[in-house]
């Protein structure tokens, strides 16, 4: 009888353990079974090498886990992920910027982190690792859907040689305002007739419109979207000032640069008299060091803060682009747990990311580290970060960014009237906002 009672008791305990709602997910998930995790990430040679080392280490510690690490061109990632997830074939782990990932969060396509999976007692402990605002793009209804890989704001890299060649002193003549930036660029630019052979400064264009140009509008009090998220393009005066500036910058104005010239990121390391100033993140230091160590060591470059307008009403610096690692929400729970553990393991090496790839993760620990402080001009980026916010994100942010790109191109290259362009731009963005709410 005792044996029967004992068996019934064991059976009851087993059944209650299996069906108990309060039990931890990992307790009922077989984490010893072999799993293969697929990671899709954008190309970054320095980071790929480092992350592959970390993954090897993780696999050695967890022999049942295999990782398939795949890299793709950054410009193609959003499209690849959209197609893959639409077909139900998304990777287990992927990374993208806040502009792209928000749609994945809002559509419930990505996994929400259970803090116990990565050994934290509560989700607040995870938030406590990061500086305020760093996780807002991956937070929805109190749940956390991603962890930040890189947190990038842009400042201006200055080539001192080109300044001196133009008879300027880089230490004193560097531009502090947008007006000065245009005037200094005029002194630095070289042309053969109308054709630019050396640019003073040029923008990044490409996918950087919301990141590097929207702050120019916001410094004048303008906004892309109202605070309640319902109205597009606030503050016509600010927008018109910005559009007029870009028109003046382009080939139909003072002819200082254009998005059709070779992208500045591919020539800024060269030190070959093609470019004096360009915006980039702290990561550029690793790229200069890798591509042109002689120039890196020469001290002939420096970094200056993001400019402001002379009559700016808001102190806004370059917006921050934050890339997050996320986990596919449709994979098995065991895979999700291993995926989160791998992400947490990789991202726990924030000093390694900084040292080997010059990528900044928005953790208190990193900003306070000696390594960060010892990096050339890191204080310029840190000071700018104090006035920076995440680049605009929403489910339609990529489309809105493209509309801004088209508006800037229309005034700069097609020489269209800024008032007309502003009206078109407002209509298109409003349309996207309404469509999102539809």
């Amino acid at each position, binding site marked *: 009888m005792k044996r029967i009672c004992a068996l019934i008791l064991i059976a009851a305990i087993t059944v209650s353990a299996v069906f108990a709602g309060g039990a931890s997910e990992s307790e009922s998930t077989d984490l010893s079974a072999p799993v293969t995790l697929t990671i899709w990430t954008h190309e970054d040679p320095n980071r790929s090498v480092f992350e592959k080392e970390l993954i090897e280490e993780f696999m050695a510690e967890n022999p049942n886990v295999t990782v398939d690490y795949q890299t793709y061109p950054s*410009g193609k990632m959003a*499209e690849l992920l*959209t*197609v893959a*997830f*639409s077909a139900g074939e998304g990777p287990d782990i992927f990374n993208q910027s806040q502009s792209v990932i928000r*749609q*994945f969060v809002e*559509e*419930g*396509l990505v996994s929400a982190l259970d803090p116990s999976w990565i050994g934290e007692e509560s989700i607040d402990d995870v938030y406590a690792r990061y500086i305020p605002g760093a996780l807002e793009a991956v937070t929805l209804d109190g749940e956390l859907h991603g962890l930040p890989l890189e947190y990038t704001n842009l400042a201006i890299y200055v080539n001192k040689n080109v300044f001196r060649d133009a008879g300027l002193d880089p230490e004193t003549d560097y531009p502090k305002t947008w007006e000065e930036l245009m005037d200094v660029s005029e002194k630095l630019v070289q*042309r*053969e*007739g*109308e*054709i*630019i*052979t050396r640019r003073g400064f040029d923008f990044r*264009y*490409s996918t950087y419109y919301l990141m590097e140009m929207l702050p120019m509008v916001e410094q004048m009090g303008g906004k892309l979207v109202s605070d309640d998220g319902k109205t597009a393009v606030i503050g016509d005066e600010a927008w018109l000032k910005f559009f007029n500036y870009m028109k003046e910058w382009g*080939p139909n104005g003072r002819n200082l640069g*254009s*998005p*059709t*010239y*070779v992208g500045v990121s591919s020539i800024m390391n060269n030190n070959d008299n093609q470019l004096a100033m360009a915006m980039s993140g702290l990561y550029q230091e690793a790229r200069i060091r890798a591509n042109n160590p002689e120039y890196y060591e020469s001290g002939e470059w420096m970094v200056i803060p993001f400019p402001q307008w002379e009559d700016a009403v808001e102190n806004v610096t370059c917006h921050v682009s934050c890339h997050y690692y996320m986990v596919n929400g449709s994979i098995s729970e065991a895979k999700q747990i291993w995926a989160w553990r791998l992400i947490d393991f990789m991202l726990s090496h924030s000093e390694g990311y900084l040292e080997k790839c010059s990528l900044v993760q928005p953790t208190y620990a990193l900003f306070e580290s000696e390594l960060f402080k010892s990096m050339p001009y890191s204080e310029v980026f840190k000071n700018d970060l104090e006035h920076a916010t995440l680049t605009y994100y929403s489910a*339609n942010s*990529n*489309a809105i960014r*493209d509309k801004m*790109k*088209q508006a800037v*191109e*229309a005034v700069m*290259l*097609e020489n269209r009237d800024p008032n007309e362009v502003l009206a*078109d731009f407002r209509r*298109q963005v409003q349309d*996207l906002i309404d*469509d999102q709410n*539809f």
Partner: protein
Amino acid sequence: MRNKVYSIERKKARWGWFFVVPALVFFALFSLYPMLNALWNTFHNVKLLSNRKPEFVGFRNYAYVLSSPEFWNSMKATVIFTLMSFIPLSVFSFLFGLVMATRKTGTKIMQLIIYSPAILSSVVAALIWLILFDPRGLANSAVNFLMQTPGIDHKWLTKASMLYMSTAIIYFWKYIGYFSIIILTGIAKIPESIMEAATTDGANARQTVCHIIMPLLKPTTAMVSIVAMLNCMKSFSTQYLFTQRGAPNAPLNVLTLNIYQTAMRDRNISRACVMSFVLFIIMMVLTVIRMKVSERKH
């Protein structure tokens, strides 16, 4: 006897079906079903990445697309690009085909040179020309040399009219060889006896071209013009790459590019399908008109 014939015909028909069915199944699966699915999408609110069940919205997507200034800008860009590419392609492919057919020497070299761009992918072709159209590139330098205008930026990649021209030049360069070879093949099919008879009757070169070659080449020229026109209307990669390199969107935003952006960037599959249907109908109507005109002349 009649029964035997009947059974042979049935047997033949059965074999006919045997050979045709795979093609029909392939067509039904990979062409007809996607087309019907696209038509269904146009009446629903289908969005990529959305977990929500598509709602029936009637003609709302059609109303939106047909009242959108961006759609009509795309129509304009498509028409301009098609006219600027298709007319020179049709005319010059005939001329080049004729020259190659009548030359005694160097024909093979000429065919090789003229056809080689066709084997390049459109992406590679566009990338090559992007370098040439750079303000410091060969195209600008050549025009400045010919016009004696040193230092002038002809704005190949920024000015709307120049963008129409530069994309049309790329398309012409890439496909002229392909269509010239088709014309050349058409000319080669004209019976030698007819050409000899014309020569015997004292026809000169102009008369041979106008009264012998051109009438007999009509089916080929009709086919070339239809295919060239349809290909021009479907052009995508050149415009896409130009916009990726910073060229302004409006002059390049042909319907195919708009469809791509609406589907992949805006994730609005339904509106992209509406535009695809509009493009399909336009292409079909133009093809029928071209065929009717050709038949009437014949």
